[in-house]
């Protein structure tokens, strides 16, 4: 109610205050971008100075390690030959994750082969494996620390937030200066995005170990190390493997960007395909999704099956398991040596030759043709779908986006500043309100107030759509396991398919500049909103639901009066996370015409307007923090 009042006041402010009240120049730090440019130049000079100092020596060491790791993994995949790689992947997952996951793994490898993208897929697999290994090597220790110390957790959380919100485009160039191009730089960029989930989920896992077990260990005189290694880590193991799983997912969403600085693999195919062969870009995007889904299913199956709290391994079981493991490795090695002896290629070939004929080994061309046909349909402005999507896009633009943009951009800046701060105070309390005020002021001082408000209008519309649909679908999925089962692969796809890939059809279908960007952010954010809502509704105590039914409530009444209100916490978290994820895609919007901050960042890399790009990234970060505080609500600030 109070929020409505504030919005009304803001509207009045917009309507009644005459004249131009854009952010005053006197309150702007205009030299900031130039200073940042100077900093980059300075960094470059330092880096190329003849005798590298100690700090750079460490970076060089890390670069060498990352380069070595990627090269070694690539070499290993080549040495295995394509037959051996399929065998190794499938058998290992079979041994540790069960036949279902093994089947998915097998099918994934087969699809890389028949898509004709084997080599690129293996390059991406090696790069991602290295990035994930190194992310975990850093993320898990930090996660353990954060899990054991509330103070450390509080300190590190904003850093993790920043790592996830600041778009990769912004730090691509500094990373290149420090680590040059190639696998190492690609690994670093990926790590910046993939370490945070590793830290967060590890911390959550360590915290999730029942206090009883930890207290018992202490009561028996365990040292901190004994408690960690004998109690906390084994009991958190499943959660730790889940963090592996999420780290993989986040890492894979950076494949395309990694390609820009020498990451090679599927990312390159996507980027180049976009300019000259959209169908190829989409095919490579599909390969990325398949890799993500297979890795997800494999790691979660392994996490479940090797959980020591459920596995109940007795001595005999252990011996048995060891024998199976040995047999698995023997099987892999036998396959590899047999394959090499029979002359299998290191990568899957395009053609198979027999003495008489040559067979095409892939259906690459057919797939491309099919995708192209679909694209042609989408591009056809007389198609049935276009008749629906174009007016829809125009409707969103004219009735949601433009009014909101006008309100935020054209209102006097103090009206917007005061209004948002007041909403933060009403919804979340004093401290969040102060943070909001500071962040919005920072945006103004950095001189990007109109751009930030323009972006904010897009973010809010996208979040509203994502939350609306997310809640409806999330509740539905919570009510029907079948819906949830059907949704899962779809949600996985949305989370890992490079946005640039699925955005292409929407550029054709909704040819209005800011709309495809909004669609991309809605599609990126909605899986998380759906999952949070589903979990929240599922988590409603059965007793409350039972009581409602006992009083004769109908199913809809139970939903509306019991489940949804009790799941409010999760739903608010969904709104909040939705905003953060939408912000993460702003830069993609810049590439498809959203303008504003996204545009500045995209330009920042491509035209080396480094300072501008950084300023815009910081503005996104500030906007993210401000909107996070506005919507945080009065819940426990120590979220995971």
């Amino acid at each position, binding site marked *: 109610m109070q929020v409505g009042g504030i919005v009304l006041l803001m509207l009045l402010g917009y309507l009644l205050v005459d004249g131009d009240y854009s952010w005053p120049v006197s309150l702007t730090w205009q030299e900031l971008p130039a200073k940042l440019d100077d900093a980059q130049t300075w960094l470059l000079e330092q880096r190329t100075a003849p005798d590298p100092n100690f700090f750079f020596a460490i970076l060089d060491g890390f670069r060498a390690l990352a380069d070595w790791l990627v090269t070694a993994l690539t070499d290993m995949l080549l040495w295995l030959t394509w037959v051996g790689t399929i065998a190794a992947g499938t058998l290992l997952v079979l041994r540790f994750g069960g036949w279902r996951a093994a089947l998915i793994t097998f099918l994934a490898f087969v699809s890389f082969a028949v898509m004709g993208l084997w080599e690129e897929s293996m390059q991406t697999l090696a790069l991602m494996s290295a990035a994930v290994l190194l992310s975990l090597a850093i993320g898990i220790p930090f996660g353990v620390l954060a899990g054991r110390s509330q103070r450390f957790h509080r300190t590190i959380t904003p850093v993790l937030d920043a790592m996830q919100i600041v778009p990769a485009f912004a730090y691509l160039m500094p990373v290149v200066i420090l680590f040059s191009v190639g696998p190492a730089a690609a690994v670093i960029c990926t790590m910046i995005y993939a370490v945070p989930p590793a830290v967060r989920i590890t911390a959550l896992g360590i915290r999730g170990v029942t206090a*009883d077990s930890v207290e018992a260990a*202490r*009561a028996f005189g365990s040292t901190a190390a004994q408690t960690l290694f004998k109690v906390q880590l084994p*009991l958190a193991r499943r959660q730790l493997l889940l963090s592996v799983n999420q780290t993989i997912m986040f890492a894979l969403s950076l494949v395309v960007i990694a390609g820009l600085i020498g990451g090679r693999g599927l990312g390159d195919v996507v980027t180049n395909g976009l300019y000259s062969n959209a169908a190829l870009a989409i095919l490579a995007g599909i390969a990325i999704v398949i890799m993500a889904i297979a890795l997800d299913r494999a790691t979660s199956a392994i996490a479940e099956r090797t959980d020591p709290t459920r596995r109940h391994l007795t001595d005999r079981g252990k011996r048995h398991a060891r024998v199976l493991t040995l047999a698995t490795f023997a099987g892999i090695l036998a396959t590899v040596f047999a394959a090499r002896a029979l002359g299998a290629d290191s990568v899957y070939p395009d053609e198979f030759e027999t003495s008489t004929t040559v067979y095409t080994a892939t259906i690459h061309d057919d797939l491309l043709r099919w995708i192209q046909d679909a694209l042609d349909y989408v591009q056809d402005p007389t198609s049935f779908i276009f008749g629906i999507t174009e007016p829809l896009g125009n409707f969103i633009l004219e009735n949601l986006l433009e009014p909101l943009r006008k309100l935020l951009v054209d209102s006097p800046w103090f009206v917007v500043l005061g209004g948002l701060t007041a909403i933060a105070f009403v919804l979340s309390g004093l401290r969040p309100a102060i943070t909001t005020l500071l962040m919005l002021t920072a945006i103004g001082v950095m001189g990007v107030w109109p751009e930030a408000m323009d972006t904010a209008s897009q973010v809010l519309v996208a979040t509203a759509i994502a939350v609306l649909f997310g809640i409806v679908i999330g509740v539905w999925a919570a009510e029907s396991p079948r819906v949830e089962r059907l949704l899962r692969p779809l949600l996985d796809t949305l989370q890992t398919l490079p946005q640039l890939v699925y955005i292409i059809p929407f550029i054709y279908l909704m040819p209005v500049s800011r709309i495809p960007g909004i669609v991309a952010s809605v599609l990126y954010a909605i899986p998380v909103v759906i999952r949070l809502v589903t979990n929240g509704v599922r988590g409603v105590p059965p007793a409350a639901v039972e009581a409602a039914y006992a009083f004769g409530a109908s199913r809809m009444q139970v939903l509306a009066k019991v489940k949804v209100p009790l799941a409010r916490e999760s739903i608010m978290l969904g709104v909040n996370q939705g905003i953060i994820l939408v912000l993460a895609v702003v830069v993609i919007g810049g590439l498809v015409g959203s303008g504003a901050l996204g545009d500045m960042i995209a330009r920042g890399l491509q035209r080396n307007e480094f300072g501008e790009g950084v300023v815009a990234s910081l503005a996104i970060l500030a906007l993210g923090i401000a909107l996070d505080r506005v919507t945080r609500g009065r819940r426990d600030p120590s979220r995971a």
Partner: protein
Amino acid sequence: MSDSSGSAAVESPEATPPAGGNGEPLVRAENVWKIFGQKADRVIGTPDAELSRSELHDKTGCVIAVRDVSLEIMPGEVFVVMGLSGSGKSTLVRTLIRLIEPSAGKITITGHDVMEADASELRELRRHSVSMVFQHFGLLAHRRVIDNVAFGLEIQGVGKAERLARASEVLGLVGLEDVANSFPDQLSGGMQQRVGLARAFAVDPQLMLYDEPFSALDPLIRRDMQDEVVRLQEETGKTMLFITHDLPEALRLGDRIAIMRDGAIVQLGSPEELVGSPANDYVRNFVRDIPRTHVLTLRWIMRDPRPGEESGGPELDVKTTVKDAVPVAAATDGPIRAVENGRCVGIVDRVSILQAMAGGPEDSGGGS
């Protein structure tokens, strides 16, 4: 209520610990405080310390969990701390081995000053002298039963063969030999807590701490487990500190019982003293439903023998409960002699038995 800030325990003269050992207490706690919240140390010793819990919380934001508690536990004794949830009893037991750091006070266990102990001395104390049984068992789900039992020894650094041998020995003691290779989640609650017991026994501690060990169990199983504790105590003679919110359990097990409320001990004494002479309305209310005749012994109702009464007539041990004395009294007209170590220490007659029965609540004659 009159006893809202009973900071001084009401201690009957008879409440001196049974002189079983050499007279030196195994555990001595003096003026132990635990206050949660910032600036807790600024409360103790100021007038604020006299405030009630809610007043203090409103004024300073601090919560008093343990308020000026002193107690001594003698070797071989079963000492029970009883109180409702939130009375501070679980916090108290944790402060003794500094699982929760006390805000103030002095604690000595087996002659060692716990408060002064550094981290490694504290670990040594926890490893060898004290062990604990937990309300929610605190078993490690990823280890077999036998590995759980051996956990304390493993922490001490005992070799694998030796600790497994000791663990199976202890498992035999609690009757769980057959499930040594099972995992905790495959066992019933009662069996899990037996594993917890075995784990605590395996390190052969001098002092065992029980934190409401049976409150998560079904009543019938709880009784079995209580019997188990009594048996183990008799067999091993361990000193035990037992926390419970269940008065019958406290009366059953305890040599002495401390009743806690709002962090302070309101009465400390033998079961008879609590039932026979509650220190205040709070305790009285507590023991109201307890059949007095089941708790009070002849020692409690006897009078000094008059000359000539020391011989003749039926004699009963002075520890006999009133309930058990009733049939004897019914069968004889004369006084009954209460005997301790073969010597007559007092006289009980029908009148005193009837008075004891009438003084209690509407006792229908022992339903349990």
